[in-house]
């Protein structure tokens, strides 16, 4: 049974100010501000207040639309979407309905083209705080979030499995990161609504899904639910369901009969916007190299294996480090160490590269020490751990933690090991290969890995010859 999936993804944009007023955008705050302290007459929706479009929102929106290969519409406009809800100051949301900023785009996901229907910008409503949980005693409204710029990216129903939807979202998130309009380490929220149906069946919309894992889980649950209905000879009804991440199920929200009619009309307070071709062209030229292009280039120019290239791209900061390091040292070596030990250590410490003291120069110096065998691979890895966890310079850390092999008297250790294991030593002389490996292991244990295994092997062979 074929599954048909489309996604609508909302992302809070990190502009300096809100979309329709001069208030600061709380997405860029490090600390959550006191409720209702970042507000004005416009974002509360006081009578007489009027919106003004923040040009940075249009700039970010255009960048996203261009990166998704959309057509930027000659003139785009804003509309009012009316519905009554306590989180909306005006009881209508200013969004783009008739003519969005961009349309007819596409995104390549694991070799498959997902068509992008539209990209538009709109305002986020206020935040509701349910006292005593949902259904509790009462609800408080915090308007700090009201007017936060959102971009909405809508796909055609081009995905055919929950896995594909997850991959699409991962790719999209990466593109947004490279464009500098989304940073998963900040408070910016990325949320999706999904449309899913079995071929020939009714379409179900699932609201309120955060993150790639949840998209996958919500869609897998909903796919199974619809398939089970079909097996029982029942039909899926057209409805809107809510994803409940705590229970990992979708729950009924409203059916088609009670579906809201938003009564869209043009927003009379905002004039349609026409972007000059030269501005669009400039924005296009300034687009950074996107993950898909980098992926190809890493394999072609740096001869990096596909898996490694993927791992490097997943974090834009690591990709930058890789490209810079490749100018000074073998790119395959750089790729292995950045995508491997460095990435692992960063994840383990829950840190981002920019939060450490690591520079291109210091990282390259670690690799050079390793390359010239002044550091064993274990010591090089230890050094990276100290660089991430403690900070500071490689030379200092090498001394502090005695990471070079030079501090150990290898000959002395070997003599002791041979003396303590006479049988094994004899076996080696008699040509038993396993015995040599055993002795190497013993020496490595004694030297706590500060000496490279090859060096130990050669030294042992020499001593027992």
């Amino acid at each position, binding site marked *: 049974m074929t599954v048909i999936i489309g996604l609508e993804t909302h992302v809070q944009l990190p502009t300096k100010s809100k979309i329709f007023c001069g208030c600061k955008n709380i997405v860029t705050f490090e600390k959550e501000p006191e409720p209702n302290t970042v507000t004005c007459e416009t974002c509360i929706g006081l009578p007489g207040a009027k919106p003004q479009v923040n040009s940075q929102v249009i700039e970010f929106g255009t960048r996203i639309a261009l990166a998704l290969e959309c057509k930027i519409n000659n003139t785009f406009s804003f509309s*009012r979407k009316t519905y009554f809800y306590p989180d909306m100051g005006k009881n209508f949301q200013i969004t783009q309905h008739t003519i969005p900023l961009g349309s007819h785009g596409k995104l390549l996901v694991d070799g498959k083209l997902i068509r992008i229907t539209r990209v538009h910008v709109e305002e986020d409503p206020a935040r509701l705080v349910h006292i005593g949980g949902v259904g509790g005693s009462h609800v408080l409204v915090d308007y700090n979030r009201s007017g936060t710029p959102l971009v909405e990216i809508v796909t055609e129903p081009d995905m055919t499995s929950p896995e594909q939807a997850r991959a699409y979202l991962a790719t999209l998130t990466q593109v947004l990161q490279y464009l500098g309009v989304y940073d998963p380490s900040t408070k910016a929220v990325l949320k999706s609504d999904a449309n899913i149906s079995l071929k020939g069946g009714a379409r179900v919309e699932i609201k309120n899904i955060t993150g790639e894992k949840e998209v996958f889980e919500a869609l897998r649950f909903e796919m199974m639910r619809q398939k089970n209905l079909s097996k029982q000879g029942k039909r899926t009804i057209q409805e809107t369901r809510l994803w409940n991440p705590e229970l990992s199920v979708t729950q009924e929200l409203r059916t088609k009969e009670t579906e809201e009619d938003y*009564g869209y009309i043009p927003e009379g307070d905002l004039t349609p916007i026409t972007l000059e071709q030269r501005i669009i062209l400039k924005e296009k030229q300034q687009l950074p190299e996107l993950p898909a292009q980098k992926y190809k280039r890493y394999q072609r120019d740096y001869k990096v294996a596909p898996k490694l290239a993927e791992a490097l791209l997943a974090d834009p900061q690591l990709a930058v480090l890789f490209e810079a390091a490749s100018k000074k040292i073998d790119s395959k070596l750089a790729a292995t160490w950045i995508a491997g030990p460095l990435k692992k250590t960063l994840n383990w410490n829950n840190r981002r590269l920019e939060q450490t003291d690591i520079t291109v120069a210091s990282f390259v110096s670690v690799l050079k020490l390793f390359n010239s065998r002044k550091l064993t691979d274990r010591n090089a890895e230890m050094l990276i751990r100290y660089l991430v966890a403690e900070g500071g310079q490689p030379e200092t850390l090498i001394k502090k933690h005695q990471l070079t092999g030079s501090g150990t008297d290898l000959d002395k250790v070997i003599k002791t090991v041979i003396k303590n294991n006479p049988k094994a030593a004899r076996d080696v002389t008699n040509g038993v290969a396993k015995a040599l490996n055993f002795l190497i292991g013993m020496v490595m244990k004694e030297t706590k890995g500060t000496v490279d295994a090859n060096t130990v092997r050669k030294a042992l062979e020499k001593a027992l010859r």
Partner: protein
Amino acid sequence: MPQTLVQLRTELKKGNRSSFYAKLSKELDQLNRKYHVLLERTEPSHTGSGPLAGIPVSVKDCLCVKDVPSAAGSEILKGYIPPFDATAVTKVKNAGGVIIGKTAQDEFGFGSFSVNTNIVPKNPHDPTRSCGGSSGGAAALTAALSVPHLALAESTGGSIACPASFCGVVGMTPTYGLVSRYGLIDYANSLDKIGVITKSVADAELGLSVIRGYDPRDQTSLDKKIPPVPKRIVLGVPKEYFETVDSAVAAAVWDTIKKLEAAGIPYKKVSLTATKYALAAYYIIATAEASTNLAKYCGMRYGQAAPLEQREMNEYFSAVRSTYFSSEAKRRIMLGTFARMAGFRDKYFLQAQKVRTLVIQDFKKVFKNVSVLVTPTMPVIAPTFAEIEQMSPVQHYAMDVLTVGPNLAGLPHLSVPCGTVKNMPVGIQIIGDHLTEATVFSLGKCV
């Protein structure tokens, strides 16, 4: 006695402003008892300087004045005190104008007689008659005051011209966008225009020169220059604008046109064929926009509230809205919501937008041949309250038939008194092309 704002300003410069305002305050008390023109009075601060130094200025209730209750004549917003000034009010204050109070109006501008509200202003020429609407209080106060005064008013479909005509004063509605709408409690955003009501054309010109100008806080405000008055002015008289008009009113307007002709300003008969669709289109667009603007009044943040009584939020919103909106507001919300619903939007709202384009094209074509258009402002003289009670909502709406055209097209139009019928004033409406305010004023001075 000073006849114009400039004369009053000169006199106040020499004399004592405090004693003038003490006297004015008594006169306002008296007028308010008789005609119910002011909803709020303010303690005037009259020490400013500038082109309006010391001049008394009233503000229609729908314009926000900081720290002064501003409710757009409605019950649901009663007691709402804005924390900021409308741009037009700021400009008046900066020019030395003295805000004396808020004038009565139809709730949110919904009406042509100022009867759709709790405090109904009366016509100073005959208190059994309406002063028109929706800027009724502004026109009645201007007519009744013994001294010149500037009234800030607002028009969506004729709310400045109508009361000016009924009260025998001058009402200027400028080109859409010429005056910033920031701080205006919206009726219909694509139609709302802030203008002025005064005793003379010269005063209206001075008033408009103060409040106009580009404002970054209103994206629809214009950053354009007004061209000078052309050497030769030709009037256009659109035949459709006389068809539904009371014959005595039409005769008074024709007398004025003939007088202007005798003074060397010729006229041409013209036709505006889209006129017959304009009224219907206007009411669809205006109510559709209004129904979204009024959504915010739900008893949550400001204005009237209802007891919570553990109600679900939709029930609570409905309780507040059912209690405090008048039946006219409810009618317009329902009409407007219907016109923009899926399935009806194409047939009504979008169709009305097409008609609006036709109306604009109609005017643009005519303005290739004539400088300005002259028409009656209202089809009748001010009706009595008894007559109004007999009217159906559709008859009410039909009062705007001569003013909705220029309002839909966003054209500047000026109503100037041009005679009387049954001792009641009649107004002539001068309609200009976009941004031809200078030409419109110059002709207004000839009437």
